[in-house]
């Protein structure tokens, strides 16, 4: 019978060794203090992001450099799947495959967004299309087939062969009328987290606890994002239940229900965090400034939840070395690293101040 040691020893050892290649905080700080985008990029020269600098030097194009960042991240995390298949059991491999399908879903969302801009809103997408990660999706759909679809029905036909075809087929017909892709994004996120939660159930008890905590925080991030975008209550058929995801770690269902039904969404969530966790200064004050405070509160909430995820990741790294916590932590840290580098580079490109860039990190 497989033990935790035999299941995770090699995989987690590999991932721990890879963590040494994550960018140190000092490099990020120096990038933030750099005088220009070029100087910030040069700090990546002797790191695992060296090819990003090369891409920029060859094209002068930040978007090409960002595409390279995405490619590096995906390649790195594809290696996680490969190590899992090589070193661990089928349950863990399957779980990690589901976990890493988030990148495919993200690419599909990006492709659908461009299709929407082009086919529904009638805008040119030529300047954005080259910067999509060109991968083939599960089931044979490609970026080309998605972006070049003429109608929602054609798009549905293209996506039918993917694992998400069924959930998308119910929402695609209405997007032209609604003029929004929100229902598509919600459907994809819902599919993902339900698949992930199903995968968690197949894990052993100790792993399940760790996974539920970390995935729960990610669910909280998604829910906050949805509440921020003014989720209408009762979208799920006629049941009147909120559309928000269950299984969050820090936000419970009562707080979510209150936030969605009150109409004050983020304000209520901010108050909840202030009351429950004693975090001052999150909620807005004057009614006149509500819109600004709502945006500010949402950004702070998401940022705080991202930090909570990092704290959980570090906790997993410091704890039992033979659990699913290490792979989960690695994925979280790698994504955080990619997000940080992209944020800093964009900040430098748009000549944002160091304080403004720091606020987003």
């Amino acid at each position, binding site marked *: 019978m497989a033990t935790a040691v035999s299941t995770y020893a090699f995989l987690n050892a590999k991932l721990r060794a890879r963590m040494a290649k994550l960018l140190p905080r000092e490099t990020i700080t120096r990038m933030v*203090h750099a*005088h*220009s985008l*070029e*100087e910030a990029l*040069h700090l990546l*020269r*002797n790191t695992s992001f060296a090819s990003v600098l090369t891409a*920029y*030097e*060859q*094209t*002068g*194009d930040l978007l*090409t450099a960002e595409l390279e960042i995405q490619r590096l991240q995906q390649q790195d995390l594809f290696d996680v799947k490969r190590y899992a298949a090589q070193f661990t059991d089928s349950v863990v491999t399957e779980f990690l495959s589901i976990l890493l399908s988030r990148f495919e879903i993200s690419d599909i969302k990006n492709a659908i967004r461009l299709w929407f801009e*082009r*086919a529904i809103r009638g805008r*040119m997408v*030529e*300047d954005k*299309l*080259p910067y999509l990660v060109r991968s083939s999706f599960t089931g044979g759909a490609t970026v*080309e087939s998605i*972006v*070049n679809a*003429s109608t929602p029905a054609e798009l549905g036909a293209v996506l039918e062969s993917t694992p998400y075809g069924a959930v998308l087929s119910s929402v695609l017909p209405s997007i032209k009328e609604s003029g929004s892709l929100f229902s598509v994004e919600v459907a994809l996120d819902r599919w993902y987290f339900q698949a992930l939660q199903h995968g968690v159930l197949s894990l052993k008890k100790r792993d399940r606890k760790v996974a539920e905590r970390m995935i729960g925080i990610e669910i909280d991030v998604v829910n906050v994002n949805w509440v921020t975008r003014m989720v209408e209550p009762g979208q799920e058929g006629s049941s009147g239940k909120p559309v928000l995801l269950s299984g969050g770690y820090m936000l419970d269902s009562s707080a979510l229900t209150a936030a969605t039904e009150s109409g004050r969404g983020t304000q209520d969530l901010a108050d909840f965090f202030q009351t429950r966790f004693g975090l001052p200064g999150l909620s807005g004050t004057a009614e006149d400034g509500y819109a600004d405070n709502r945006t500010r509160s949402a950004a702070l909430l998401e940022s705080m939840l991202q930090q909570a995820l990092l704290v959980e990741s570090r906790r997993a790294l410091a704890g039992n070395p033979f659990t699913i916590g290490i792979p989960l932590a690695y994925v979280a840290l790698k994504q955080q690293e990619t997000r940080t580098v992209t944020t800093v580079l964009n900040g430098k490109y748009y000549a944002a101040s160091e304080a403004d860039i720091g606020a987003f990190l």
Partner: protein
Amino acid sequence: MIFTSRMVYLTAVTLQEYEEAVAQALLRLGLVHFVDLRTVARLIAPEISEELSDKQSAGIQDFSTTARQRIETILTTGGLVPPPVRPDDVAAQTQLTPDEVNRVADKIMGRIEDVREQQRNIQQQINRLEDVQRHMPGVNTAAARELSTMGAGGTYLFVRSGTVPTDQLELLEQKLALFPAVLTVVGREEDSAFVVLVGMKRNQSDLGGLLDAAGFTAREIPAEATAETHETLEASLAKLKGKQGELAKSVVSLVADEQPKLEDAWRSMRVRELMGSIEGSFSETKRATVISGWLPASDRAAVTAALEAATENHIHLEWYEPDQLKHRPKVSKDGLEKDSRKRSRKRPGRVVMPAGLNAPSRLENPRFLKPFQILVTNYGIPAYGTLDPTPAVAIAYLVMFGLMFGDAGHGLVLVLAGLLGLWWTRVHIKPGVPLPKGLAGSIPTLSRLILWCGGASIVMGVMFGSYFGFGWLPPLWFNYHGVVAGHVEVGPVQSLFDVLRITVYFGVAVIGIGLVMNWINLVRQKRWFPLLFDKSGVLGGIIYGAGVVLAADFASTGFRSVPQNPFLLGVVGVASALLFLKAPLEGESKNVMWWVMEWVIELLEVFAGYLANTLSFMRVAGLGIAHVTLGIAFFQIAQMASPEGYNIAAILILILGNVLIILLEGLSAGIQALRLNYYEFFSKHFQPSGVEYHPISLDSTP
């Protein structure tokens, strides 16, 4: 080379107006390891310590560092390396300020950004054409299709052919530039051009509109259009990519054109940075600047001359030997040092320096010993005044490696690998440039070490008569292969036990040398108590020495009868008994039972520890035997593959086998030799409490 370099401590006081000149002089010399005087002053001269304030130079240093790093970035963009800083540059450092350097950097970065903007525009054009190319299989590929069929369906391409008035052609081309589209002119008629447009179906309404606006008249797609369109597309892409490449090179040229200015700026900021570090270690009173630090005693005259010249003799220098800065003064109830007047006549006051302010240790070894010096400093910095173990480590390490990896052929491979590494270093690492991070930065040192190890292997290989496992020449010492295979019946070494005995004797020698080194260090430090009573002290050494002889006697009887040497037994007994005095003399406890317990534990540690340390050297024999055994195994496999002579398969087996042996055994031997040095040898004498000598000089790494 034998001991760490002798150091002296300098305290100097001069007027503030000479501060910069003093800093420049000290930077040019690059000999002083600066210390924080305020901490020292509290001990040496408490009455003035409160008068001292730290020099505020951190801000200047930070601005200079940032500016220097910016210039380095620009130099790196142009494939250039920062220049060395010369002594003449020190005086010129005031010519450029960080603000001026930042302005230079801003200007150059602005010009680079202009080029990047052009690159971006070209890249967008390339992106559009590549979008079309992605959907057009190459003419000579299996998926090649005619344009007419591509446009009809099954692809995302929009294809039209027809005529456009000649005067509308240029305008049409300009408007098409915003789309992923290729316009090919396949023929010319009187007032019109026959064109073929290939674009994306998703843009068909826009493209159709542009064609209509240009007065387009549709015609059938000609047969040659497919090939010509491919040609046009490839030619356009090649032209754009060529331009892109030229722009990328132009950045390098731009930086190269500014190289003199950039190098001046870099030097200026580097000197400012170093001056900031030096001045940051100074302390000030209202009108004076106080300087303090350690320097090699041999350079005292040079530093004195430089300081006196820089200050026009307006400087007061005080020199201290490390001995004078070691002992704690006896302090009376009112806080004054007892017998202070008597002490001041005969000797200056003695103080205990905090650990970080002890005399720094400088290891001076010839260049060929540098790899072994690095092995020593990796473990720790030897305390000041102790023996530099580098020469001993070099000999011990190489002998151990040779015993574990004794094959002349394998050694030759290592020598070649070392030479290859040194060649790589010469090609890729320029003098004065900081080493790259990671494995690449270790290559220079590793290569030299591998070169030495290879040499040791060659020597021992000749001694054992082993050349890639073949006995081509008779051994100068003993036939290791023969001993392992059980074929040797004459000579000093006939069995594996003889080999084990050799390594044990070697271990005894290494441990013995370690003990003697420890005693020398303790005598120099005048630490008499540990000299006598420590595990590696004289008593412990006597027990060990007598024990080795007794053990040899015991072994010589085939481990059958107890040693009968009353004198040596008596020596061991007396030394063991004397160890009992350690606990009472240390004075930690007045409990006799405590003393007994301490004594018993001490004896256990001495006997067990020395036994374990000595037997640990048997691994040298173990690895040497494994090295030979692996070779024998591959020979046997080769013979099985080719019973009569050596065919291709057998040769391949032998080659691969030797490669595997070199990699596996080479790594094992290197690691085990290091382990034996660090644990068995260093534990006997090494005091890793030293502070490394780090003077601020023009050669200091940024």
